[in-house]
């Protein structure tokens, strides 16, 4: 059973997760694979994020790219849904908007495989509280 019985256990869990997952606030990492987050809130799903996510998962597999794909909540850029965040090893996360299947293909081929940025990046326009 993984019940957390005290603060030490909580902070152990925190450190364990942080060592294997990258968050937008943590810029440096230690060579983990590509990490992709797909916004999956009601508004994103209505704009097709589920298709985008399924496509990305399938294609990464077909094209032999080592990456983790997870879902996340609303990033706030409703005008640009579906949105995804891609973090390459040792790189800052980059957010892309209007990611339909075609755009997803371009992102996989150009950015994920060869580090070439593609049009449609969304600049993070808010301050974070954990910096």
């Amino acid at each position, binding site marked *: *059973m*993984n*019940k*957390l*019985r*005290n*603060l030490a256990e*909580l*902070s152990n*869990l*925190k450190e364990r*997760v*942080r060592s294997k*997952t990258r*968050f*937008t*606030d943590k810029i440096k990492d230690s060579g983990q694979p590509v990490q992709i*987050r797909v*916004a999956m*809130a*009601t*508004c994103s*799903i209505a704009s097709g994020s589920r298709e985008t996510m399924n496509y990305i998962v399938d294609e990464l597999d077909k094209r032999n790219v080592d990456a983790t794909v*997870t*879902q*996340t*909540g*609303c*990033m*706030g*850029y*409703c*005008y*640009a849904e579906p*949105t995804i*965040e891609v973090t390459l090893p040792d790189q800052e996360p980059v957010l892309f*908007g209007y990611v339909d299947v075609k755009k997803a293909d371009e992102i996989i081929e150009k950015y994920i495989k*060869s*580090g*070439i*940025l*593609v*049009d*449609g*990046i*969304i*600049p993070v*326009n*808010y*301050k*974070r*509280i*954990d*910096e």
Partner: protein
Amino acid sequence: MADFKIHLLVCGGTKCRSSLSTILTEQLRTEIKNQGLDDYAQVVTTGCFGFCEKGPVIKIIPDHTIYTKVKPDDAEEIVTEHIVKVRKVNRLLYKDPKTDKIITDARGMEIYKKQIRIALRNCGMIDPESIEEYVARDGYAALGKALTSMTPEETIQVIKLSGLRGRGGAGFLTGLKWELTRQTHGDEKYVVCNADEGDPGAFMDRSILEGDPHSVIEAMAINGYCTGASQGLVYIRAEYPLAIERLKKAIQQAREYGMLGEDIFSTGFNFDISIRYGAGAFVCGEETALIHSMEGGRGEPTMKPPFPSVKGYLGKPTNVNNVETLANVPVIINKGHEWFSSIGTERSKGTKVFALAGKVNNVGLIEVPMGITLREVIFEIGGGIKNDKKFKGIQIGGPSGGCLTEKHLDVPIDYDSLVDAGAMMGSGGMIIMDEDDCMVDVAKYFLDFTVDESCGKCTPCRIGNKRLHELLVNITKGNGTEEDIERLINLASVIKDTSLCMLGQSAPNPVLSTLENFREEYHTHIHDKKCPAGVCKDLMKYEIVPENCVGCTACARACPVGAITGERKEIHIIDQSLCIKCGACMDRCKFNAVIIN
């Protein structure tokens, strides 16, 4: 990996494009090619940076330089200087208007960003279905801290000192509410999260529950510890299936990890949460109606006092808080009340999440510090008005709020200033309107909503608002009289004074505020029988301009009701008594002969 050493990110947001960022992109690409740097530097376009007033904006990676107000002609200098000679182009760097300090990189631009994410800190950042990711971002640390090192009184004190006020509409001091619930004796007490979110256009609570459900669960547990409750209830509308699913999963995980249940953090504190579903009636968001609905009774408000803190669910002391209010709580405990109260204004602390909708370029969910102006929200974060139209008004606070105008653009967004201006914070709907919106129609739209949603318990609300609505319909049909304006004002004040709950009390606000700010538009409808925005159909007349009509018959063939007559090559005429104002003739005419009058 490609060999691009430099990436130039050019803003391709609507506002920057209207100041030539597309040409700038082309110029940069040409220049890079001309100087033989194709394999070295790359130009890509981005969405809005949120610095629209300083656009077009360019960001250069990897050195994070930000250039503002860049013109197509600057392309050559940027390439030659920045890329080839590795020297920043000083005149294009952002200069702080107050201190004249030059900001050289994106890090320095941070402080000019208009948004701060506190309630939305994890939305879009973590997997909402993973408690571990929540924990990785300091999740449940606040609960642990409160339980193991703070007394309930101390915890309440922190929330009180932070100045956090309710985000559900009324703006009551959260810490004070917790204290009142704590001080009331009861063998059983309850903590309720209000996730009814009924304002049309508002979806921040849904987004929080979908993107970061654990923050609400953690806050409810802290609330339980502070008030002495061991049971939490989330009242959520059944129309939010995804939020419900994620919340359910989160509650399950919290139990598995021991963050809900018995003996949390081995402190002897017990707390658990269950979910109650609402059918989506607006009035059920009102706390007393919400409680009756949870008890299985009719969703009708009752008189306050007694407040729920004293006599709530099953007659027991009950602390009701809104989703967004709760989402702020863990951060306040972790970072301290001084930190929180340093953000915002004198009497409104922290941030507020708004659902920005209507005629702005960047619709979306935004979180801004209290005290920001409407102008900054609309023209910087919102990216200005769509299609370069003229800004006309902004409805804040949903159906209970008010409609503000151009002259209010510099009003700071905080509880008190908005009320002074004739609107209210409400739950966070913000609808931007442009010259094509008719204000009488807007008032009618919101009243339509409240008439529909009134629970019918009291006469002024049930019948009074219906009469208000009828008066508005009359005006939009061209049958209004000058006396109708007096009638609207008188009736509105009676409804405000005599309705039982805030739904009725605030229903006339959209009418009153549009009357206050757009009186001439009512006059034009009443006296000239015209709708300046061209919205009220009954006041529009499709007419054919004889000079332009060549008699091609296209319009007559398009008209679904046969309202247009005329021989080939002769001037056509619309029979107004038959016309249903569908606009088909206007779409069809290639000679601009059909006009709206």
